[in-house]
């Protein structure tokens, strides 16, 4: 954590290279938050990058350098919520123009589709688990819930994911 404070201090002092260390440390967590919130890999990638750029711009306002992780994840989460609101409005316009809903292509299409359709309360813990260290304690800490609560959500998420994949397979047949 001291190491993290030093990196944050160096960034505040104008050393942009120090930001690389912070980006590498939190890229997976931020991506997990974005994918967990948005359910779409492409959007999650774009918003993650935006979050890191915004994070660097605002790093002077971060009071405790040791709290960079939770802070950058909060930025990512807020950007995702903004994006989701914009997307919802955009989707309404597309719908009015007669646009169709396109599913994901390529590898793991069924799984990606199912992840996208998973309720956010399940998707977020699941993505945090798989992209951020595979630890239920990490999930609990990121979501501010008990480890037991995190485990419950994770197991329900897996169950729901399987149900969605199965229903997807049936609808494709």
């Amino acid at each position, binding site marked *: 954590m001291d190491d993290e404070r030093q990196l944050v201090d160096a960034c505040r002092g104008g050393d942009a290279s120090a930001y690389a260390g912070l980006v590498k440390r939190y890229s997976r967590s931020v991506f997990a938050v974005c*994918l967990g919130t948005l359910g779409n890999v492409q959007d999650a990638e774009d918003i993650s990058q935006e979050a890191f750029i915004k994070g*660097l711009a*605002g790093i002077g306002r971060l009071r405790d350098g040791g709290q960079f992780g939770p802070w950058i994840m909060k930025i990512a989460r807020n950007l995702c919520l903004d994006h989701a609101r914009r997307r919802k409005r955009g989707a309404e316009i597309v719908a009015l123009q007669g646009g169709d809903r396109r599913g994901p292509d390529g590898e793991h299409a069924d799984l990606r589709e199912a992840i996208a359709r998973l309720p956010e309360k399940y998707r977020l813990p699941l993505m945090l688990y798989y992209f951020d260290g595979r630890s239920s304690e990490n999930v609990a800490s990121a979501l501010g819930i008990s480890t037991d609560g995190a485990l419950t959500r*994770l*197991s329900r998420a897996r169950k729901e994911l399987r149900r969605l994949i199965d229903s997807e397979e049936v609808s494709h047949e």
Partner: protein
Amino acid sequence: MNRECRKLRADMERSAFEPLPRKRQDEIDGHVGRCAACREYLEAMRGDERALMDFTRSVEPAIERIERESIRAAACGAAPEPDENTRAWRGIMKSKIAVYAAAAVALVAVLWGLNHFTGLFGGEPAFADVMAKINAAENVTFRQLLKYEGSDPSAAENMATATGLLRTTFEEIVIVRDFNKGIMLNVSPSTKRAFLEHQVGLKRGKGLFNYVDWIATLQDGPSGKFVGREKMDGVDANVFVVANGEFQTTRIWTDPGTNLPLRIVWSNRHNPKLDVVEPMIMLYESDFGGEKGRSRTVIHMNSSNGLQRNSEWVYDDFKWNEKLDPALFSIVPPKDYTLSESRFDVSFKGEKDLVDALSAWASMSENAFPSAISDLNTQEKVRPMLIKKYDRNGDPDKELEEAMGAAQLLLKGLSFSQSMKADGNWYYVGAGVKLGDKKAPVCWWKPEGSQKYRILYGDLRVADIDSVDLPKTPR
């Protein structure tokens, strides 16, 4: 599906994220063996796990792009927002001329950035990419060559899985460890003997493979520094160096195509601050009336700051994500083997380990404390004491196991003392002190980050003490 199936399946789902208590896991295993529907359910769960892991791997390039592009943006001009004074200056930027002038400044900044930060995005490989690949792997097999100064090198073959299983073959001995269940099976085909060790308090940690020593070293230490390229196995391998403290260095050669290790060399230099950094006690079966020529050893490899002797551990011949036969990781002893079982508490309890060790020592030495803390590991002193206490002309196996348990206790206490000594915050004055002496100090130390010292007295009481109140020590 009956009620039992429903309840077991809920726990099966949970076990995908956290190991269950052993008893419950055994119940599930037993039930799955009998119930075809639950077997199918378990298979489906495993399929989901594989699919999710595959999916995680498939989006690794997206994460790499996030890192690359965010770092590039930072280097190319994105910068912390200015303070109030420069905010006023920003108002001037609204004029057209100022914007053009600013564009020129930005261009200079970009060029400067490119020049200054080439190392970040201009082709130098990132160690984080290597760790990401390691952490995303399902399994790895590798060879391990241990070279201790003054000893012949010894080689072992290893297989490790991300699910917490490790198989090591050393000469004819096969050791299989299940880190989820805390079980270690040691099999010797030539003697037809098997040892099953139940390890209580084993913590696997958060990383997938962090029970593999070299992966734990890379994960715990600072990030690896790229130092250049070297030819290895026909490829221009990327070379990284990780310096873990003053006495440990790890050098890693990775395949630039896969970002996975080709060779790792972990070098340990002797740390002169420590008197014992690799606590070890060896006992013989014959010490307790058993067969001659067979020994059992308790070793504590808990040092992250050098070892007792200069040593080099070489890991190579890596193979990643191959199809491994699950039977290779079976922890069921072969039927026709003679089986011995033991139970060790391998958890670390900090100063309680020290109290337990000194208490155990005093109980074997007429209530005296050791004359030096390193006595806890001195073979010539410890072995006769253990034999005297545990050799009761009974079952040699049982007595040996009891003695090994006591040896473990002594070494855990010693490990604690050495970790304090490494920071220079340890003092031992126990020579001549008798167990029960409330006023006589035995030792004191300063825990990391604490303002006060901790002091242990002859009655095994531990208390806080200010540095000004510490006992006087001879210079």
